[in-house]
């Protein structure tokens, strides 16, 4: 019977490190690739709304389908009729007339941007909305801060988006 070789085996640390890092690199590449795919998918399919000026112009904003349209509620256009609210939404010089069955919720009012869900009535060209969401901007102004320049800026903001 021969004497067993009890010489310590050489260190294999570098090989073990390679084993640990490689799956991480592969997983990171998978995540990056997945992120690119999701980004592309979201960019083309999950843009939340079409702007008013893109209706009938941009791919996915065709008038013959259900749409979500974003625009600013036109100043002086809100009319509350029996069981319905009529108003214009405007963006970048374009305008769409909206008939919403009911009273919009949230903080709906003139000069605020909204997203209206609905379909176009082909005969009247009116956009028949069944949901209105108020898209609040990132600007916050104190309610009692009624200095002249801010009032003028507010007015200009409503005009410029129209």
């Amino acid at each position, binding site marked *: 019977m021969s004497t067993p070789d009890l010489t310590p085996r050489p260190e294999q640390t570098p090989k073990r490190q390679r084993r*640990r890092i490689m799956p991480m690199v592969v997983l990171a590449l998978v*995540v990056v690739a997945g992120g690119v795919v999701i980004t592309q998918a*979201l960019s083309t399919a*999950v843009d939340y709304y079409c702007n008013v000026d893109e209706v009938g112009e941009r791919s996915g904003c065709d008038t013959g389908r259900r749409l979500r349209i974003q625009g600013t509620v036109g100043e002086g256009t809100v009319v509350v009729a029996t069981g319905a609210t009529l108003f214009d939404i405007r963006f970048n010089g374009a305008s769409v007339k909206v008939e919403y069955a009911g009273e919009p919720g949230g*903080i709906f009012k003139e000069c605020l941007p909204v997203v209206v869900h609905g379909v176009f009535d082909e005969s009247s060209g009116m956009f028949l909305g069944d949901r209105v*969401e108020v*898209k609040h901007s990132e*600007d*916050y102004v*104190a309610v009692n801060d009624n200095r002249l320049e801010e009032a003028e800026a507010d007015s200009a903001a409503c005009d410029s988006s129209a």
Partner: protein
Amino acid sequence: MTLDPPSTVSTTSRRGTATAATRVLGVLTIVMIGWLGVFGLLLSPADRDQGDAVRIMYVHVPSVWLAYLAFIVTALASAVHLFGKSHSMQADRVAGASAEIGVVFMAVTLVTGMLWGRITWGVYWQWDARLTTTALLFISYIGYLAVRGLEGSRSQRARRSAIVGLLAVLEVPLVHWSVRLWRSLHQEATVLGTDLDVSLDGLMLFSLFVGVVAFTLLFLWLLLHRSRVLTMIDLSAETGLDAALAQRRAEGGVTA
């Protein structure tokens, strides 16, 4: 400030996980949260469009800040565990504790955001880019906590969860920039936008600042205590194992 439990703590101690430093931190946190209440509810003005609903911002924004911070701390601690020479188990415990806190405050973010959305938008929820990616982030870290609980040795679980913790944190910038990358019902960033232009009334901004400081202190306080609790759980498990081995040896007539 150490993350290890106080040296006098044992399984029979009544001192718990507190030290003089954490007590000071706790008092500071309570004071700042009190100030947040005063500024958020009394001193800061209502918003021109949103009215008093804007006060939800003083909890919503600091809570999402805290969740982001917690997930970044989880990733850093995971990296220390995974790539450090000693594969520190303390770093793993910090990662786990931070993720738990992050998940809780991400839930707070979602709930306050839904309430705020109902008041301003008119709906609790919509599957737009910001809300969807936030939900995805929340679910990812619930998954992270699930991975921490999987079968395996303590070191195996720590290694697995460290990898998940490093991958999941990549969602944080995606969530933050989602309102710039895609069209979203959610507003764009008011404070941490790309143009660095803050469109916020002065007292509102200060109240928000008080909220961020208060929640950051709260995070540190919770992280210290929870990390120490996790350390004590590990010590308890080891003590239990030693006791079981000693009992088994005694049954077999073997002296340790």
